[in-house]
């Protein structure tokens, strides 16, 4: 299982081994990551699971989907070049070691 680490805006660091195929919003909620709410349960309706990565990871994660991209454009906080909605990222072996920044509230 890939290990994923979240760095929350308040300085909290959370790591978890995430089963392949689980979306990273659900994994974050299960691990109690601060700043990830997932109010809509991964339905691309709320944008409360925003994360960002460094550029190397961003390449491996790939680009946001069309609908995800539109949500990110209008997100309450600041969008970065590597912003993603974590409900749209599924855990897979090559994401082992992934570090996700959880931006603070706007």
């Amino acid at each position, binding site marked *: 299982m890939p290990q994923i680490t979240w760095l929350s805006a308040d300085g909290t660091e959370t790591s978890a081994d995430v089963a392949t195929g689980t979306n990273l919003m*659900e994994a974050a*909620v*299960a*691990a*109690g990551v601060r700043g990830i709410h997932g*109010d*809509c*349960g991964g*339905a*691309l*309706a*709320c*944008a409360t699971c925003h994360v960002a990565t460094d550029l190397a990871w961003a390449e491996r994660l790939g680009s946001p989907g*069309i*609908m*995800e991209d*539109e*949500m990110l*454009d*209008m*997100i309450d906080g600041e969008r970065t070049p590597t912003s993603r909605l974590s409900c749209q990222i599924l855990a897979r072996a090559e994401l082992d070691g992934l570090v996700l920044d959880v931006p603070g509230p706007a």
Partner: protein
Amino acid sequence: MDGRVVIIGAGQAAVSCIAALRSADATRPIVLVGDEEHLPYRRPPLSKSCLAEEISIENLLIRPASWYDGVDLRLGAGVEEISRREGRLVLRNGEQLAYDQLVLCLGSRARPLGREAGGDLAGVHTLRSLTDAARLQAEFRPGRRLLVVGGGYLGLEVAAAARSRGLSVLLLEAGARILGRVASATTAEHFRTMHAARGVEIREATGLDALSGAERVQRAILSDGSEHEVDLVVIGIGGLANAELAAHASLETANGIVVDAGCRTADPNILAAGDCASFPLGGRTVRLESVQNASDQGEIAASNLSGGQRAYAPVPWFWSDQYDTKLQIVGIGHDHDSIVVRPGQRGDAKSIWYFRGEELLAVDAINDPSSYMIGRRLLAAGVSPARRDVANADLPLSAMLPPRG
């Protein structure tokens, strides 16, 4: 006032209330009483992905079990009575529980079909809880004939899930059209067409007279006199606030537990939040059944328990997933007198903008998250774009936004 807080009802409002209480004071004693055995879980997927896929409680939990460390959890324990004078609850098992302050997060339940109409036959379902969803999912077998009573979002979502599992679906709407109470005729038309293309038979202005069968439902008699063989039925005709406990404790109720903008009842030690609360919004008294409302009110209630003076003035939002279509709604369009339909950036995308006079009330976005998010920001800022600008698809919506800051 920093005593023991008892929260009755273990859902979305309760979770957000606990989170806010703990961030204000990590040591305050909190008791959570829930009538189901489960930790608080998400309900929206129950009518959507859960009917089409395997249900897993772990994936539905709003927070993991460890998150509740320090909270006195009383799950599977219904409340029989609130004794306000003595500041205590009587649980169904007879146990008594003292409180200093009480938050009622009692939720709502499905409006049932009456027994006289066959509502108690086997195979007749409502959908509100995990147990309901599991029962219904077990009945979803290819080739079976499902009757859905009610053309609101729940009924349409169930119809979509059933088609994806290979059932045949007849959907009845007693009103003039589907989504009559909640969306414009244009939005309804989009969903009607989509469901028809997927093989759902929709009958509008047609009610259900009765269901019949030996022990299990076998036949439906419609208000137009026609009869239909059915294998199972889902009743999706709205929700009722769980307000009885409050009413018995002589708190005011009217389509829910009446609270002020700060989620307070007339009893200074009792607040209410979520589906069960009826509150002032835009000059009316409303009750909203949505995740956003439960989550935000839970937080407001917690803040005001600790002496805060926050007023709840939401821009409500809501969503529905049907087949591959995502509907996102922001605002309340009830009182609109005109709509503007705006094509989206892709072929299958559009948005419906609800106006009263020059005031923007709500936006329905169909596969169009960009319009939804912009509508949400406009409504939150209290800014109404000109109708002709919204109608002009060559003008980017982002140009209508007020500057950030």
